[in-house]
């Protein structure tokens, strides 16, 4: 691993300005962070090349040789189950001329072989063989041990595998911090944990990746307005959000906005079977998680693990926002359910997410339009000089006996969005992880 180099060190960029871009204390965001090429280039280095990025759930790669391809920032990676049974993540780019070595998005393989000159790599990314190896006989600088596909660190939390290209980054455990306590609401409300349903819906939005990420980290404010048409179509009315029984909570820029209504999100899946399952399990959830967290299992809520892994409890969908440029994002959507849940619920969740939170879903189709227009208007130079207001709930922080992390009263709030952008500014302004404060 000694050949890993973090490119951010010493790069000449306006890092001193990171603090100006985000004024978390007063709730102002500089619009240039959604538009400028140099800021975006720095994000790829200082956010995506050194944070823990979600790459796969254990259930997606059950057997040795199972693989999928993904991206960390704009770096294409292969995620595979090695001969050692472990999940490996490495660049999908041959060490010889850089060609892709895997062209399928998912599958099963024994080797990843380059189409160009036949260099062939194992499931752990190590170079196994090349075509016409005799051509390298006596060649001192041809050392197969040094020519593997560049690896990322891989660590996991309760079946969720994350990869990180920065050897100096803290462990995943430290990176997630007390947010693990919240993640347990979905990852560990049942002894069997969760499993992902087969398939991954992918789509492109012409928006900056931060707009959807901040939307999931804390924006319940938009739901009754943006999604009015879908809510009326399904229920004939708006949902009830109770300020006194709902919260924003964040840790290290990861955040969850939630009510304690137990089934608010799940109710939009149009499935009585899902509601029945949740009701039947409620006492078990409470036994495992305690009363407060058990009320979050299917509640009106949304969340984001910094930087780009969003999810909805109740809807049971995970998604990642993969940057493809300052104004383009590729959305990957998955559906999960408890591994021990009745298998007939698989179709209920799968079809319910399609109906609501997929590109053709009646909720999500309104979101993309907003994210795209929030981005494209910044082509205007005067427009992007105008700061964005993110000041709701500035004085809403509370002490709570049970809830961990930084806690704020009312889910109609922008505390988590400010925490998300503060973490972003921390990383953008920091030369190394040592300069990034725990939040």
């Amino acid at each position: 691993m000694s050949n890993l180099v973090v490119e951010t060190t010493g790069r000449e960029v306006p890092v001193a300005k990171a603090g100006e871009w985000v004024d978390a204390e007063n709730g102002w965001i500089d619009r240039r962070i959604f538009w400028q090429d140099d800021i975006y280039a720095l994000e790829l280095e200082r956010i995506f090349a050194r944070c823990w990025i979600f790459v796969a759930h254990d259930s997606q790669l059950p057997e040795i040789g199972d693989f999928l391809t993904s991206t960390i920032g704009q770096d294409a990676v292969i995620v595979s189950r090695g001969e050692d049974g472990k999940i490996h993540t490495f660049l999908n780019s041959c060490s010889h001329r850089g060609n892709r070595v895997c062209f399928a998005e998912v599958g099963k393989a024994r080797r990843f072989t380059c189409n160009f000159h036949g260099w062939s790599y194992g499931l752990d990314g190590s170079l196994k063989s090349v075509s016409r190896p005799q051509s390298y006989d006596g060649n001192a600088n041809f050392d197969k041990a040094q020519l593997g596909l560049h690896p990322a660190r891989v660590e996991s939390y309760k079946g969720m595998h994350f990869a990180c290209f920065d050897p100096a980054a803290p462990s995943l455990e430290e990176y997630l911090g007390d947010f693990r306590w919240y993640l347990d609401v979905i990852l560990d409300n049942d002894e069997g944990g969760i499993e992902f349903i087969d398939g991954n819906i992918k789509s492109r939005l012409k928006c900056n990746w931060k707009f959807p990420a901040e939307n999931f980290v804390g924006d319940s404010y938009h739901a009754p307005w943006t999604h009015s048409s879908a809510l009326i179509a399904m229920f004939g009315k708006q949902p009830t959000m109770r300020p006194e029984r709902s919260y924003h909570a964040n840790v290290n820029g990861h955040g969850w906005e939630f009510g304690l209504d137990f089934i608010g999100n799940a109710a939009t899946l149009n499935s009585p079977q899902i509601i029945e399952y949740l009701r039947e399990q409620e006492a078990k959830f409470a036994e495992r998680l305690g009363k407060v967290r058990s009320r979050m299992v299917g509640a009106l809520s949304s969340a984001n693990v910094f930087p780009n892994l969003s999810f909805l409890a109740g809807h049971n969908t995970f998604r990642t926002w993969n940057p493809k440029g300052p104004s383009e994002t590729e959305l990957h959507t998955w559906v999960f359910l408890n591994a021990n849940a009745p298998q007939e619920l698989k179709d209920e969740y799968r079809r319910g997410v399609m109906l609501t939170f997929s590109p053709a879903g009646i909720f999500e189709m309104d979101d993309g339009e907003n994210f795209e227009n929030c981005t494209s208007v910044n082509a205007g130079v005067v427009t992007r000089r105008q700061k964005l207001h993110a000041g709701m709930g500035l004085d809403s922080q509370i002490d709570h006996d049970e809830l961990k992390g930084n806690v704020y009263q009312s889910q109609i709030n922008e505390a988590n969005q400010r925490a998300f952008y503060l973490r972003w500014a921390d990383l953008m302004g920091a030369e190394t992880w040592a300069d990034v404060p725990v939040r």
Partner: protein
Amino acid sequence: MNQSDQIASCDNPAVPIVLLLEIQQFLYREARLLDGEQYDEWLELLADDIHYWVPGVQARYRKDDAKFSVGRMAFFDDNLEYLKIRVARAKQPSAWAEDPPTRHFHLVGNIEVEKTENPAEWTVHSLILSNRHRTEDDEMEIKARRVDLVRRDQDGSLKLARRKVILQQTVLQSKNINTFL
């Protein structure tokens, strides 16, 4: 029946030209209703037991599993109830993202009609091009291959009983699908 009234298809007995024309007109009319957001009239073209399926397509190696399959994630895997919920949303005045309306364009081509074992049902292959424009310069295009089951209803009208839409894109190059394909 005169030979000229019939059209040959590769692996199926001939289908009368009149029927071919009727099914073509049925698909063209459907496309025009979708272009005009006349969703209630569109729903009337569907059989009560409609299965409307737009599976996610994956780039997989030839030796591997199918590029799409039942039970895998999809954009639509709908019965009539689900389709009606989608239509109900599209019709709400508070569907802000639909005002000004999307300018829809559904082009249907390569129509091929095949007989099935049921004399009142035909398998219909076609290609669909859905082009959408919004506001000044927002343009989205989806191309797909369709396999339909078209049924002669008891009242004599044609109904769409099954539709499978196989997208060309594995990564949808659009922010949403606010139409039917």
